[in-house]
């Protein structure tokens, strides 16, 4: 199978994309269940319905490439290679979590594989990713950096300043805007005259590409070209992925008044995983049994991850002040 442009995607790669989307979905289903059971202490911002975006982008990345993420970052972390057990343990506040229980849902870290962190503040992923690209430039490597952010961040100063400088200096970075049409619960179109972020790109002098963010192959193809450009020194790209969050902004939050049930149902019908399954089967790429086998495997992985997290120890309270500084110095304040 080939996309509209670019190289053919082999069966193995397509099944890998399918599997990654499922890893995100099944892991978050565990999180939803654990939240409902009262096992999660803070917010849970699910990525359900948006899995194709992180999956299609991160499939092109190496461990040495860096990703900067958002408050809705589970999918970015998992598709960059974070084991589900470290994610679930983090939300359960456990010592075995990816942040040792310091962060929870919004503050995920695994720099060993280039997952540089997710942020509870909207905007910094853009500038920090540009900075990581600047460091790669100084080192003269072909590393690239990716910023994920939502439509909300496009109305933030970091978008303007970060994209302007990254473009002016041809930095090896990809800006991925997940346009799910709501900044928390504010409809993007009510606070933005032009609600199509990719069309802003020409004004900054970089390519702007808009794709169906629920079509993992479309994302994969567009991200592939953008990352190729970045690696070869041709500068950044703004990739807008039009998608939708089908659950509440955060688990347990009142999800009414700002959008209709019909709209939610319409997007649920465009579920990226179901849609991709349909393509794989219709194109004869995979048999139903193959897909079922992958799903069974992923379900087992997610269940094992939840069990691991539930059995994990809480962090030692005495460690809470560690790592405020790189090293403890005599006379340190505090």
């Amino acid at each position, binding site marked *: 199978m080939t996309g509209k442009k670019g190289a053919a995607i082999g069966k193995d790669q397509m099944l890998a994309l399918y599997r990654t989307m499922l890893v995100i979905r099944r892991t978050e289903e565990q999180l939803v269940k654990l939240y409902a059971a009262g096992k999660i202490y803070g917010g849970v911002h699910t990525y359900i319905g948006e899995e194709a975006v992180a999956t299609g982008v991160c499939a092109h990345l190496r461990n040495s490439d*860096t990703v*900067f993420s958002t408050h809705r970052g589970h999918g970015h972390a998992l598709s960059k290679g974070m084991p589900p057990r470290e994610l679930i343990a983090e939300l359960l506040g456990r010592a075995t979590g990816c*942040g*040792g229980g*310091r*962060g929870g849902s919004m*503050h995920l*870290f695994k*720099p*060993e594989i280039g997952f*540089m*962190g997710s*942020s*509870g*503040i909207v*905007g*910094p992923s*853009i*500038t*920090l*990713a*540009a*900075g*990581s*690209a*600047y*460091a*790669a*430039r*100084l*080192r003269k490597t072909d590393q690239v*950096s990716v910023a994920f952010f939502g439509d909300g961040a496009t109305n933030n*100063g*970091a978008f*303007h*300043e*970060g994209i*302007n*400088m990254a473009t*002016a*200096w041809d930095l090896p970075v990809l800006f991925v805007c997940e346009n799910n049409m709501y900044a928390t619960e504010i409809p993007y179109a009510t606070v933005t005259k032009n609600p199509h972020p990719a069309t802003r790109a020409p004004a900054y002098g970089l390519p702007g590409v808009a794709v169906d963010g629920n079509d993992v192959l479309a994302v994969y193809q567009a991200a592939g070209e953008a990352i190729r450009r970045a690696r070869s020194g041709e500068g950044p790209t703004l990739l807008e992925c039009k998608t939708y969050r089908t659950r509440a902004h955060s688990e347990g939050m009142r999800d009414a008044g700002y959008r209709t049930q019909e709209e939610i149902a319409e997007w649920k019908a465009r579920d990226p995983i179901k849609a991709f399954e349909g393509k794989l089967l219709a194109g004869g790429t995979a048999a139903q049994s193959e897909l079922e086998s992958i799903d069974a495997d992923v379900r087992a992985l997610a269940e094992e991850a939840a069990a691991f997290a539930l059995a994990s120890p809480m962090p030692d309270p005495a460690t809470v002040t*560690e*790592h*405020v*500084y*790189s*090293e403890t*110095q*005599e*006379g*340190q*304040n*505090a």
Partner: protein
Amino acid sequence: MREMTFVDAAREGLAEEMARDPAIFVVGEGIGVRGGNFNTTVGLYDRYGPERLRDTPISERGFTGICIGAAASGARPVVDFMFIDFLTDAFGDMFNQMSKLQWMSGGRLKMPIVVRGCVGVAPSNAAHHSGNYYPFFMHVPGFRVVMPTTPGDAKGLLKTSIRSDDPVLFLEHKNLLALKGPVPEGEHLVPFGKASVARGGKDVTVVGVAFMVKKALEAAELLAKDGVSVEVIDPRTLAPLDIDTILSSVRKTGRLLVVDEDFAPCGVAAEIAMQVMELGFDDLDAPVKRLNGLSCPAPYSPALMTNLIPTTTTIVQALRDLLAE
């Protein structure tokens, strides 16, 4: 030892570090070919080019964020804000990202970044070019706050700041930039958290902050003529704060005055006084006293500046009052 100005000494420190470590780069407005508004980078562009002397647009939040991402990814940025007032646009990312990422990542990310800029009240600089702001950064866990007052310390502390894996506020008082003093050649590193006793004395202790160290030394000289022996302490770094040197001095003198041109509430003097009360109360023969600038923005007219910040005269008076307690 050779003498040079504060700004030349700091630049020598920067140049030596840039020669030593290719991961170091500087960003700021006019720090490239122009060499910096305060001559902080003169001559370095010719040696290291635009990648390492990066002139920026007026995008303080943006280039600070870029430096945070670069520092987390192994580079060692120096952000040259020219006037520290300009960093207020970057407060959010400094407090939420720069100061917290080491902790949030459990020490797996480092944040070797130097934020430098000129602070302080100088003639007719007015409300947007006279800021100090260091108490904000003393308050927030994760920052180092460095305030050299001599050319030798400017060089030695800037080198230490650049080698630190923590975010460092390196603050240069405008009234000190042209000051000349001895500066060691080559490798000269001044550690964080070690105050300097700028003048030894036995009757009363003054802790000065930045330019106020110089004013306190002048006051001490005047009082010496009357037979009063004043010890002047320059903390050099406010975070970490070397409270031990202050406590040792208070143990000897029993009296402490803190002079800071910045606002009094929740300021450096408030912190030092509290720590001395907690750790050295029995050594005090009188309550700790503070002398601060007025709590208002800095004005333009010389007339309006008359009573704005402590002077040699007001410091002498405050010391006489303290000795009379």
